[in-house]
């Protein structure tokens, strides 16, 4: 059991947690993740620590409410409660070397994972620009990024009434592609790094490829155990089957089979929706539920 030392709702749907997890805090490095299980009947979800204190033994996590688990965590957990499991650190740390001028892009929730890596790159002497493309008002980590890297750019957009996930995704891709093109056109870059939904990552990669700039991507296929045991997170990279949990999560964007990844991350969409609907039903029936 891992105590929730603090919890805050940063903005709509963005929740920040400070968790007592000394075994992770002692070892975690930028680019690594943890697997969290919050409820006895819950699933295991990968999350990225954004900050940690090795001495005091805590880590900070940020979730964006997008499915049943993250919503339940936001609704039901409070400081003093505990997470049942925090396993990790998992995955390989990001490569820490001097690349030169880096454009690190976070699409929506991807910025959470970009933050510790970008900060560490800047600290060892890289010139890092971070770009967060996201619907407003998601401005998590804005100040932290502004204080940690050479330049932080927010490319936000307003959600229009009646938009569903498809429209948001389309707008996201449109914005990301336009902004990245503009930056690549006007400045010299040594490395582009991207974290976010696979469809958006692919669209940005198509642009970067035209400029021939080296590009790394942290991939987010569906995971179960996160220790290389199940193979749920397999991706094709350079024609070989790799497990994102133990071979990644960072890969050369030029070698990733993006279409396959896009198919694989969408496999359970209908069931995720069902789980969410069932949860919402329950929520409405409970007298102390919040739907007043």
């Amino acid at each position, binding site marked *: 059991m891992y105590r929730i030392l603090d919890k805050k709702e940063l903005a709509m749907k963005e929740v920040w947690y400070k968790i007592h997890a000394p075994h992770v805090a002692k070892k975690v490095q930028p680019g690594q993740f943890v697997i969290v299980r919050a409820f006895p*009947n*819950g*699933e295991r979800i990968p999350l990225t620590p954004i900050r940690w204190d090795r001495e005091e033994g805590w880590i900070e996590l940020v979730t964006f409410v997008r499915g049943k688990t993250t919503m339940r965590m936001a609704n039901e957990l409070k400081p003093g409660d505990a997470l049942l499991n925090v*396993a990790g650190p998992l995955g390989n740390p990001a490569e820490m070397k001097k690349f030169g001028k880096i454009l690190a892009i976070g699409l929506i929730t991807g910025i959470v994972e970009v933050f510790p890596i970008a900060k560490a790159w800047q600290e060892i002497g890289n010139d890092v620009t971070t770009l967060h493309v996201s619907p407003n008002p998601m401005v998590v980590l804005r100040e932290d990024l502004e204080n940690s890297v050479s330049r932080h750019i927010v490319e936000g957009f307003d959600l229009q009434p009646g938009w569903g996930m498809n429209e948001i995704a389309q707008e996201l891709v449109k914005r990301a592609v336009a902004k990245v093109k503009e930056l690549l056109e006007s400045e010299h870059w040594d490395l582009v790094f991207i974290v976010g939904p696979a469809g958006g990552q692919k669209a940005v990669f198509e642009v970067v490829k035209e400029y021939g700039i080296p590009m790394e991507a942290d991939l987010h296929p569906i995971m*179960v155990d996160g220790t290389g045991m199940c193979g749920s997170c397999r991706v094709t990279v350079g024609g070989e089957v790799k497990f994102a949990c133990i071979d990644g999560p960072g890969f050369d964007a030029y070698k990733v089979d993006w279409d396959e990844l896009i*198919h694989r991350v969408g496999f359970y969409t209908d069931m995720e929706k069902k789980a969410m609907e069932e949860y919402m039903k329950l929520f409405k029936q409970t007298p102390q539920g919040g739907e007043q």
Partner: protein
Amino acid sequence: MAVKRKIIKERVPTPERPVEERIKSFVEVNLGYTFELAVKEAERCLQCPYNYAPCIKGCPVHINIPGFIGKLVEYRNDPDKAVKEALNVIWACNSLPATTGRVCPQEDQCEMNCVMGKVGDKINIGKLERFVADYAREHGIDEELLFEMVPRIEKKGQKVAIIGAGPAGLTAAGELAKLGYDVTIYEALHEAGGVLMYGIPEFRLPKSIVESEIDKLKKLGVKILTDHIVGKTVTMEELLKEYDAVFIGSGAGTPRLINAPGINLNGIYTANEFLTRVNLMKAYLFPEYDTPVKVGKRVIVIGAGNTGMDAARSARRFGAEVTIAYRRGEEDVSARVEEVEHAKEEGIKFVYFVNPVEFIGDEKGNVKAVKFEKMKALDERDSRGKRKIVGTGEYVTIEADTVIIAIGKHPNRLIINTPGLEVDRRGKIVVNENLMTSIPGVFAGGDAIRGEATVILAMGDGRKAAKAIHEYLTEKRESQNA
């Protein structure tokens, strides 16, 4: 004891849940013996002497089988006493009898050379072992025995770390705790049990039973740290600083895949992923439990070992039509006889001599069929005694919307990357005759050294390693005291 007894040729059957009922649920199929039935079966045992008994020789952990069976008959008028005495005999060699009674391939081990087999049915040793463990648990007899045992343990003051809370690690932990060592298990998943929790389905090994066996270890003083991944959370070097010895029981954690086009299509699961979702994460209770699993109308399971049977029978319980595809013939099926029988009873089809060459997908990236090459067997046999097979150049395509790959596993990669740890080219940890690895004080057993074997062989290794660790630490203690 020269009482002349009538030989009873037929086994006392154990009741099983009817097929129609069991394919709709994950409740346990075999219901086990009652005390009366167990005594009846026990009475059939010829009570071979200890030094001769082929059952003891066939058991990887050398349980005194006639010994425990004899107690059931001896104290037939006092069931609690009978079971307590029998459990005491079993525990001397095996701390997880409720598990092994259910999952051991008894027909290839203890029961294989049973003398009764010459005149009739062999003794149903597995079901008797299971009966003793179940009755003891249900009547608090195991607690009673533990209660008597724990105060007698003499603390050694030395610490042992165990990597992996599966059959090998749990067994080693239990043995070492009984010898008075301070034992801590490092487990990567959120539950202890390893393959007993994530791999073997509820209908074959109820999870509450595994939990209860693990509880007993905790009462012996074994500490279990879940969420700790050795190689990530803590390194071997750090463990060696903190502990006097280490046992690696990390299993065969990496699934083998088939090197054929389309392997990453949606709907193709490794057996590890499918079974982990179903067993450990309880996807069969979705959406009450959050983890989903997708089982289509037509499922193909590739591979005919115990894992293949478990995957196939689990998929059947989701209402699917299930076919097991195996590249060899029926004679080479490696699963336990009982599992194959149950699978057939449950309506699972078997297709032999087919080897997958391509997975065919639809435009959405979902699997829709598997293309197989038809194989044929030669007279020549391979090193494992199986007939060699070759492709015929003829192909057959079978439609399926879910495919489960159950062709085996490799040792866990996170552990074998430990500096200084010698592994062979297949990733198996190299050990000497005492199960010590190339790193002094680090021992290993189970699938981590075998590649892929059975629960009981892993337990046998755990027991053997515990003995070797005890000798190693005794020497260390004595040299320090000298």
